[in-house]
């Protein structure tokens, strides 16, 4: 039994993220690279340590190898601790049998023993799908002040986007009067961010009840929270004001990366008081040659640029040869873009090779039919042959032959 903790965090990182297509073929969604040197999971992990939460259980299930390797002993986030620290929690065999995590609530249910070891007052449930900087300690203080059983972080979203979210109707004291799950005609624009604080004693009871209920889908949003609400537990919404983005789709991943280049977007990664930690590549500073032209872009270390880069995010150890053009694109670590190639409105995954004069993606202004336009994606370690043309919206996960 460990020392008692006031609050521990459980990070749901088992999702496949199927809408990211080939980008999550071999890695779990939280391990998807973001922002030049980060991976999505760096954000919730860094938020935890910055908020003073030093015990984090990371629940993994889908393609965990790379994620496990990345998290390691948690040292980059200062989560290698004598007491607590980061723990990878995969499904395991128990006396009553072996089960995968059936849903988000079931994943926590299967780890009741882990949480009980720390005997916390509160449990923070996080997901590994979002880019945001948040002080969880303020939310926990709010939860305590309201004497709540469950507090849900909420964000005011534009009305036109509201139908995509789980919404909450609130009373004057911020207690939740009603939930609406992705309604056609929303009555509220307070969206749930998928960040929950529970009083552990309460949640524990509901998880056990939920597991006993054979009709349940064992999901927080669909089952546990509605059950708590209908039983009349004290549920509050904690207002969050700041940048928050679900990077669940190719378009939103592309946008969220380029948001870093928009000075109007409230996501400052250079803020010393709220650093985002990551496992840093061991490589030299990046080099910009005499022939390069780099505008409005984010460039990570180890990258060498001799071509033209505009409004793009380049990860570490990328090579852009002389005469190559990269614009409005995301290029992940180790990729080589050869002379004369053009990469535009595209996401190119790790260690890909774009051979000479190949064209990946298309600018929307050059499209005849805008419905056919979208971000092109080239998968990890794929080679796009000389002069090949990759259409917008394409997802390429096998080598493409060159065109003579």
């Amino acid at each position: 039994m460990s020392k008692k903790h006031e609050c521990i965090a459980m990070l749901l990182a088992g999702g496949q993220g199927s809408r990211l297509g080939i980008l999550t073929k071999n890695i779990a969604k939280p391990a998807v690279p973001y922002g030049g040197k980060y991976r999505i999971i760096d954000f919730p992990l860094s938020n935890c340590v910055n908020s003073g939460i030093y015990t984090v259980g990371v629940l993994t299930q889908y393609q965990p190898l790379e994620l496990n390797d990345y998290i390691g002993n948690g040292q980059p986030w200062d989560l290698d601790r004598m007491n607590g620290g980061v723990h990878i929690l995969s499904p395991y065999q128990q006396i009553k049998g072996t089960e995968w995590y059936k849903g988000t609530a079931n994943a926590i249910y299967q780890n009741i023993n882990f949480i009980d070891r720390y005997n916390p007052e509160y449990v923070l449930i996080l997901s590994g799908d979002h880019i945001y900087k948040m002080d969880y300690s303020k939310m926990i203080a709010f939860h305590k002040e309201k004497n709540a059983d469950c507090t849900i972080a909420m964000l005011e979203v534009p009305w036109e986007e509201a139908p995509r979210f789980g919404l909450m109707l609130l009373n004057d004291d911020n207690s939740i009067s009603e939930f609406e799950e992705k309604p056609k005609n929303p009555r509220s624009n307070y969206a749930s961010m998928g960040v929950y604080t529970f009083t552990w004693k309460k949640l524990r009871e509901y998880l056990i009840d939920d597991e006993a209920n054979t009709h349940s889908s064992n999901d927080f949003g669909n089952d546990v929270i509605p059950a708590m609400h209908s039983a009349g537990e004290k549920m509050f919404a904690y207002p969050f004001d700041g940048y928050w983005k679900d990077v669940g789709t190719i378009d939103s991943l592309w946008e969220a990366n380029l948001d870093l280049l928009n000075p109007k977007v409230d996501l400052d990664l250079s803020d010393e008081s709220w650093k985002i930690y990551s496992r840093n590549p061991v490589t030299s500073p990046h080099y910009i040659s005499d022939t390069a032209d780099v505008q409005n872009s984010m460039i990570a270390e180890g990258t060498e640029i001799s071509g033209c880069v505009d409004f793009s995010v380049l990860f570490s150890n990328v090579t852009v040869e002389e005469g190559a053009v990269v614009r409005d694109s995301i290029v992940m670590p180790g990729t080589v873009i050869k002379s004369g190639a053009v990469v535009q409105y595209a996401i190119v995954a790790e260690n890909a090779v774009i051979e000479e004069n190949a064209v990946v993606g298309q600018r929307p202004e050059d499209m005849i039919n805008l419905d056919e336009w979208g971000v092109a994606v080239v998968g990890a370690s794929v080679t796009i042959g000389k002069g090949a043309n990759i259409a917008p919206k394409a997802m390429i996960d096998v080598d493409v032959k060159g065109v003579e």
Partner: protein
Amino acid sequence: MRSNNVLGIVFSYDYDYVLPELTNLRTMGSVPFGGRYRLIDFALSNFVNCGISKVGVITKSNYQSLMDHIGTGKPWDLSRKREGMYLLPPFSNASAAGMYAHRIQALYGRLGFLNRSNEEYVVFCDCNVVCNIDFRELLSAHDKSGADITIAYRKGMAPKIDDTLVFDLNAENRILKAALKVNSQDAVNYSLNIYVMRKSLLERLLTEAVGMNNTDFERDIIQKNTSLLKIYGYRVDGFARTIDSLMSYFNINMELLKRENRAALFDPERPVYTKVRDDMPAIHGLGSKVKNSLIADGCIINGEVENSILFRGVRIAKNAKVKNSIVMQGSFVSESASIESVIMDKSVVITPNKMLCGTNNYPVYVGKSIVI
């Protein structure tokens, strides 16, 4: 030779005097270099890349910044249960009084550390040599030749440091003659001050030298013993440069703007490790213009940068111009300011519209945290 049978020792302070400006507030090992490194990173990385897992870091004075940098040795994987990194600050006792002037005294003062170490061999080096050397080859050359001592050397113009040894070697690379204070305009075989020998031999040589009141390692131990001991040279052909002045510090940094030099010093097979600062990647703003420059993480560039090296977290404002310069961590060049041939230490601020210009053969140095 088993690499975990070798003890590494690095002198973090030797030749501080050749860089008085940069070592005023720090020691040679913590002098910033190459956009994101400190000079000691090269020595420590050379050690760990060949599998050496016990390293002693000998310090003398002003080593606060060095301690901040190396911490427990974690970035070099030297924070270990078995062995790892040992910081060896000045130690005074009756026979070796505290502040040492020479390598012999410094090592003799650590005789206890040497005695207690179980490793059979010892490698030691300085921090003013910027190099990426495969020490496994150096160790196996030492093994094969049956030498008592092996010293890494390089062929070229000798650094302008008085106690640099210059060697005459035979075809087997045995050192026949070692000369000091050679003032030659030609290429010579000069020592890189990287030594390999049995630990027991080092212990004996040190004890004898102290007994004879000898003080100079190069003169009294190496030069005197070229005929008595088998001393061999190990020729280094990769990237290895000795810093002997502010000008050479500047030039060696600038050499990294050439691709072949970066490829040699930052060989991915033998990476150079350094302390992580968790900066965001650099941002090149709209209207910025960067040519032939090395840029570290955390920089935000909105002005012009040419033939320069920017360390982590440097900010270049709109219309500012930076040319042929080295700008260290956290410095700021304000709007419409212009600098050329300047070495800016950490956290320097150039206020708007100021101009600062050194010359091609002598850069201006601006000290830490100065506001111009």
